[in-house]
């Protein structure tokens, strides 16, 4: 599988993501600088975690307006898979590629810890290697992961099975609505999530169930 990782000024988990993608897909992903206007031909485009533009103004806001984002939008329209993790999720929301917004954690503090994630929809291209209802351990690290959207949108994404991951077993770390940890677009090719599956891929991490997410895409695009 060919993949690309977009690097914005202030991205800081792009190296984690590049490492995970290479380890799992067996192919070197291509880093893409935010000022580029065209993505390389790939099966998966990843917006990594970090503090793009320092998280200044609103998280993800400035990055969402970077030059490369027009092509991200275009590729998404063409059905290319797009994954946003943490800051990447925030950027996708700000760019209008996913509904809703991630606001400050309800306790107002940055939080880094392991949470439990429940697979709410196992029939997406990002989750087909999981079973519905699976609960797995995954780290979070963010200050603004509190998912919010209006009641109508919430009802719609819930109704359409577009909530993909939920914080389980009372581990919601940020006050997110309906314990939402990750959502997908209506077409099913753009997903965003706050937790960091790229940091849960090998014994060193104390668990490797984040791999399933990348392996799901690998299978989906094969």
């Amino acid at each position, binding site marked *: 599988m060919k993949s690309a990782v977009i690097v914005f*000024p*202030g991205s*800081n*988990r792009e*190296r*984690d993501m590049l*490492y*995970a993608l290479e380890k799992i897909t067996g192919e070197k992903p291509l880093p893409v600088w935010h000022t580029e206007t065209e993505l390389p031909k790939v099966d998966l485009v990843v917006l990594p975690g*970090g*503090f793009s*533009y*320092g*998280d*200044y103004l609103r998280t993800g806001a400035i990055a969402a307006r970077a030059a490369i984002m027009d092509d991200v939008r275009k590729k998404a329209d063409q059905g290319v898979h797009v994954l946003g993790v943490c800051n990447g999720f925030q950027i996708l929301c700000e760019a209008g590629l996913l509904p809703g917004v991630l606001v*400050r954690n309800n*306790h*107002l*503090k*940055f*939080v*880094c*810890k392991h949470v439990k994630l429940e697979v709410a929809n196992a029939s997406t291209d990002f989750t087909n290697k999981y079973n519905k209802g699976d609960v797995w351990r995954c*780290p979070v*690290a963010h*200050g603004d992961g509190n998912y919010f959207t209006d009641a109508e949108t919430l009802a719609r994404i819930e109704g359409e099975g577009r909530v993909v991951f939920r914080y389980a077993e009372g581990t919601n770390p940020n006050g997110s609505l309906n314990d939402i940890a990750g959502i997908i677009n209506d077409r099913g090719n753009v997903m965003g999530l706050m937790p*960091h599956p*790229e*940091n849960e*891929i090998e014994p*060193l*991490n104390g668990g490797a169930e984040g791999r399933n997410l990348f392996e799901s895409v690998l299978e989906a695009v094969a």
Partner: protein
Amino acid sequence: MIPNDVKITPELVAEHGLKPDEYQRILDLIGREPTLTELGIFSAMWNEHCSYKSSKKWLRTLPTTGPRVICGPGENAGVVDIGDGQAIIFKMESHNHPSYIEPYQGAATGVGGILRDVFTMGARPIAALNALRFGAPEHPRTRHTVSGVVAGVGGYGNSFGVPTIGGEVNFDESYNGNCLVNAFAAGLADADKIFYSQAKGVGLPIVYLGSKTGRDGIHGATMASAEFGADSEEKRPTVQIGDPFSEKLLLEACLELMASGAVIAIQDMGAAGLTCSAVEMGAKGDLGVELDLDKVPCREAGMTAYEMMLSESQERMLMVLDPKREKDAEAIFRKWGLDFAIIGWTTDDLRFRIKQHGQIMADLPIKELGDQAPEYDRPWVATPKPAALAPADVPAPNDLSEVLLKIVGSPDQCSRRWVWEQYDHLIQGNTAIGPGGDAAVIRVGHSGKALAFTLDVSPRYCAADPVEGGKQAVAECWRNLTAVGAEPLAITDNLNFGNPEKPDIMGQFVGCIQGIGEACRALDFPVVSGNVSLYNETNGKGILPTPAIGGVGLLPDMAKRATVSFKRAGEAIVVIGETKGHLGQSIYLRDVLARREGAPPPVDLAIERRNGDFVRAEIRAEGLTAVHDVSDGGLFLALAEMAMAGGIGAKIEAPGDLPLHAWAFGEDQARYVVTLPETMVKDLLARAAKAGVPAVRIGATAGHELTLDGCNPISLQRLKAAHEGWLPAYMAAAPAEAL
């Protein structure tokens, strides 16, 4: 705007923190009255923070070399060889006074400063730690300070993208008006690609990189050396604001530029900004420096030479570049959206010359600015050795279990989770052991190698007996690295003390350094970098002497690492090292009996080494399932921590030759608690006997209670509630730091 040719009055000299005899030395050196800019430059270079005038004499006594040391003290950070052509670069630095005035920004810029020290040398930061000391919990300002400092440390490190994996948090009333924020950072580089600050070559461009210069922190360096008084509120506008976003860009731009081969010398702008960095680069290279301030990128209009030379705006660097590569270098910095300006040249006349608007604002001998700084042999009196506390003089409690509960839930011994969950300790994906253990462990590359990091000091021991306390801090640091299976390599130290002009405080300083030096020599654990912070006093009252020690250790095979948690029920628990029940200066004495008395536990460095080498060898032979060193709170607390971490209880039988409370809470040094399968105990004890290492089986892991023979069992649930509960409950009463 203050003119440069203002008359230098004794008041002005005093305001610059210079003593009359120091000013006389300036007059003698330059043979005329200095300009205002020159006075500012001298005050920056000759203050305690930059010149180490009170401490130099004693720092020289520390051992700083060893087979693995590539670069010891004198550069931005120390460099140690870790094999395979790699080096670890690390240092610790204080930001105490700024953090008291503005906790969030003070701590944040402290972290930013130490990260810069590390990447200035060509290293990518891989670990950050922080040693924090706050006032008594009940002091009205403590919560605010904790909340701001922790948010600031996290705010900077999280955004920058370095895992913050450890440190210390303590409370003591001596820090009521003067918290300590000591930030440690370590970075990884190729051993043959280290960058230094020594300029080489005449007529080469001096390049300014990073963020623009504003009026931030003018007088910051002087402030960091001045004792706090009631007027500290007045000093507020000197606070610097950190911009971790710019620092991250600066990191990437610097590493890219260094890889391009264009950098001849590089120095970050830390305390006293442009002044310190330019003087250091020139003086080290036996070169003069000429700066044209009209070329300095400024954030504010109308800045004077004085202001520009003393500004402590953050996220800035100075480089000497290969002139042939200027264009490439500029392109790299533009790509990262950072300022790049040639602001001067190296010269052959050994002068430090500053021009602005075509006028000479300062013209000083560059070597003398650094080398001729005053150096003091301050009078000192040794701290009187306290008598050892007689065991009979320490009453036993009615209920040891209740005492344990009290200790695990006390401000100094409770879980620090509330703090480290605000730090991204997982970023970079290499965290093998995160916060909460004896030492944190970070994977290095994919050969199986890893590095261990820890920060340690017990200020109450140092106060009672500086020499033993200094030794103990190094020994505990060494022990913590050993406890995860690492070979201790080297340390950095951050020496926080009160006013050195007082002979008893100076005596604490001298004593601690003696102890540190002795321990470093005995353990082959050289000092490769460090920092001194003096004048940590408020209204005449000094802090506890606090020489924080930051240690780095190497694990050749990360798979063979040990952690503190009990792994399964039914395993034997063995104590390595001799338990004598030393209660002087113990946590039991202080926190349960409210007494601060006696001598601290003596440190026998030969025994420390022998016991530690034994434990490390056992870990590497994969014979142990859990390892924890014994320190504050003694054996009983160590056992409780192992049980809580593993969610498994234990049944303990104390050998009957000591009063139970002394056995349980004594703080004898050089000890470890280990677990292993019962079937392997006999062999372990035999190997220990052969090595001359005391080892005794004290019980087994079992169930969900911690039971000490003859005491009430305590459920892990109760222990955990007490342990995890205190800090969040305490902090809940503080408004969260609005970011």
